[in-house]
């Protein structure tokens, strides 16, 4: 052999290495016979120690941090021997982070903030703790907005406390309305007519900016016409759903919303693709005379050309004097099942989602409180939030509180439906029926 230079020892070592590698691989394969699962329920309830909290990181996070720091200091003072560590997680990473926390209880926090449409999914994933008893015993809970509470209630059990709500209403340009001598619309038909009138007189403007992927902007039209996305099977609170988007009333709403796409208001070529943010951006940059925006969009609009030239009214319903029901978005706080400090964690949750903190969060961040009395106070002080609070108090609604909603949302079932209609691919009845079929599949999973 010419490779005699190869020393004996290295040949030996190679003889050893390969089987070792093979063994290591085999070992890995053995442990991998079944995919891993994780048990994250905890029986412990320690009365002191470290509590971890995850909150969403806002772009301008400093004011939020200041309020939370105050609440945390308060809590630590009242509970000896506790140490609260708050981490702010980027909103865009929340899905991975929270799933990872469910999968690895050791890394999991005790209290988390989450979007209220995620509740049902997180409960099914075994992540959230049922705190019905503590919630019921909490004196402040009597003032909690019922829609916000509904978003936390699965199978009759309560899985957290609402932190803030967000709701949409109609933004309109006061200068354009004055120039064209228009009044804010009082009914849905007027809204559509006004939008088209504006576009015909000011072709450089979209009358009402709408988006084919703006599901939350479209929902009020469906609800105002007496339709719904899905009906709860059996009694209220069963959390079993059946799609209703193809019902006659829902179709009426879909037809009304999609009639706004076209060269007479918001050309389908542009608007079919838009989501909520795009419509708000169009309004903020002065390209639209009206838009359906949330209380949380105020800052974006103030930064644009529309600054100081707009007002907000509740989105009109079908009949004069009615308000079209709007989607009550917002975030909740919940306790994780894996917590080893149950009592403390629930106490902390009550502090962080309590009236005092919510009031301060409104002042710092503009987050609308979930307690009806606190919300009344802030509406009294700030005229801007009045139409939003009115909408919330009168007629806010929620999406199906089902784990299937996450799949419907991810698969873009409703945006696809609207886009199929406004691009002329399908009729309203065909598109809604297809969407209903996909929704039912998701509910069944």
């Amino acid at each position, binding site marked *: 052999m*010419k*490779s005699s*230079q*190869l*020393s004996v020892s*290295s040949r030996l070592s190679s003889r050893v290495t390969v089987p070792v590698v093979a063994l290591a691989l085999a070992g890995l394969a053995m*442990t*991998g016979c079944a*995919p*891993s699962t994780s048990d994250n329920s905890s029986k412990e309830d320690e009365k002191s120690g470290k509590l*971890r909290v995850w909150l969403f*990181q*806002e*772009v*301008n996070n400093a004011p939020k941090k200041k309020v939370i720091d105050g609440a945390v200091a308060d809590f630590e003072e009242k509970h000896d021997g506790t140490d609260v560590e708050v*981490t*702010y*997680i*980027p*909103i*865009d*990473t929340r899905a*991975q*982070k929270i799933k*990872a*926390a469910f*999968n*690895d209880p050791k*890394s*999991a*926090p005790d209290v988390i903030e989450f*979007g209220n449409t995620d509740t049902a999914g997180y409960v099914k994933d075994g992540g959230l703790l049922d705190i019905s008893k503590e919630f019921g015993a909490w004196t402040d809970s009597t003032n909690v907005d019922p829609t916000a509470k509904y978003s936390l209630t699965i199978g009759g059990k309560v899985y957290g406390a609402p932190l803030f709500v*967000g709701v949409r209403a109609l933004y309109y340009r006061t200068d354009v309305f004055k120039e064209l001598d228009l009044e804010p619309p009082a009914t849905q038909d007027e809204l559509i007519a006004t939008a088209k009138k504006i576009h015909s007189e000011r072709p450089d403007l979209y009358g009402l900016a709408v988006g084919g992927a703006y599901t939350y902007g479209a929902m009020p039209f469906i609800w105002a016409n007496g339709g719904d996305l899905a009906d709860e099977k059996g009694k209220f609170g069963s959390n079993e759903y059946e799609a209703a988007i193809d019902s006659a009333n829902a179709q009426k709403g879909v037809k009304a919303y999609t009639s706004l796409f076209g060269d007479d208001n918001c050309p389908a070529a542009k608007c079919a693709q838009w989501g*909520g*943010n795009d419509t*708000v*951006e169009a309004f*903020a*940059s*002065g*390209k639209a005379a009206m838009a359906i925006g*949330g209380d*949380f*969009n105020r800052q*974006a609009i103030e*930064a*644009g*050309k529309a600054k100081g030239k707009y007002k907000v009214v509740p989105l009109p319903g079908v009949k004069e004097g009615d308000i079209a029901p709007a989607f009550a978005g917002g975030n909740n706080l919940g306790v994780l099942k894996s917590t080893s400090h149950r009592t403390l964690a629930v106490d902390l949750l009550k502090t962080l989602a309590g009236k005092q903190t919510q009031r301060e969060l409104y002042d710092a961040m503009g987050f609308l409180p979930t307690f009806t009395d606190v919300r009344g106070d802030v509406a009294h002080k700030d005229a801007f939030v009045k139409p939003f609070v009115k909408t919330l108090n009168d007629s806010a609604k929620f999406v199906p509180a089902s784990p299937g909603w996450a799949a419907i949302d991810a698969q873009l079932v409703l945006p696809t439906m609207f886009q199929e209609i406004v691009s002329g691919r399908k009729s309203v009845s065909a598109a809604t029926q297809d969407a209903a079929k996909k929704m039912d599949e998701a509910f069944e999973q």
Partner: protein
Amino acid sequence: MSHSRVSLRIRRPWRFAAEATALIVAAVVAFPLYWMVLSAFKPEGEIQSTEPRPWTTAPSLDSFRRVFQQEDFGRYFLNSLFVAGVVVVASALIAFLAATAVARFTFRFRTTLLIMFLVAQMVPIEALTIPMFFLMRDLGESVPGVGLNTLGSLILPHIAFSLPFAIWMLRGFVKAVPEALEEAAYLDGASRSRFLWQILFPLVFPGLVATSVFSFISAWNDFLFAKSFIISATENSTLPMALLVFFKAEGNDWGGIMAASTVMTIPVLIFFVLVQRRLVSGLGGAVKD
């Protein structure tokens, strides 16, 4: 460097045409980059404007301020640098050995192995994240420093994902080293490991630099592992997390996104400028059959 002198023989009008084309193409290619940097400097409200202008009259550092004022930003930066650095060095060394094996030896399953190296890249990475998550979790129980929440949990998967490509590329460079050189070395009494590290390694070093660029970028720009494996220990987050902060459900902060991206791109450009001479001379080795 054996620079080709062919270009000097091209007739003048053609060379001017070629150079003009090169400059125009460079401008077109650079324009989106320019727009990114410009948007980072534009004041809020001007970024999405109905009169898009390729300049701004009121440059503002607000967006950059929002990027740098993030808590732990400097730490994220160093973490990214560390992860990318370790990945580059480790994958280069491992790939060098493996490439030598597949380029200089004949053995059973060699071709199969080469194709297998590519297979992992063919699967959507989200599909592998869950098994890898549990692997990292279990590994962390027995091996400290590589479990979830550690920088090791980012380094290991990145090494694994950059290896196949590095091996394929380096194979060409190793092949390019003349056989005669190896035989001469052995005749001089060099041991196999001496040949490997003291003769072959320096010869393919430019190739290693070339492949490192790829592993550097993939590790530097990664979002998925960073957001899946670093769960509670936010002090171990990497730079892309500082970019993701600006993506929000109720309206993205475009200025912040552009500023953070500019900040992220600059180190890679510096890395490129530093290695580009070696990169070009290095890659050339791969063709010498």
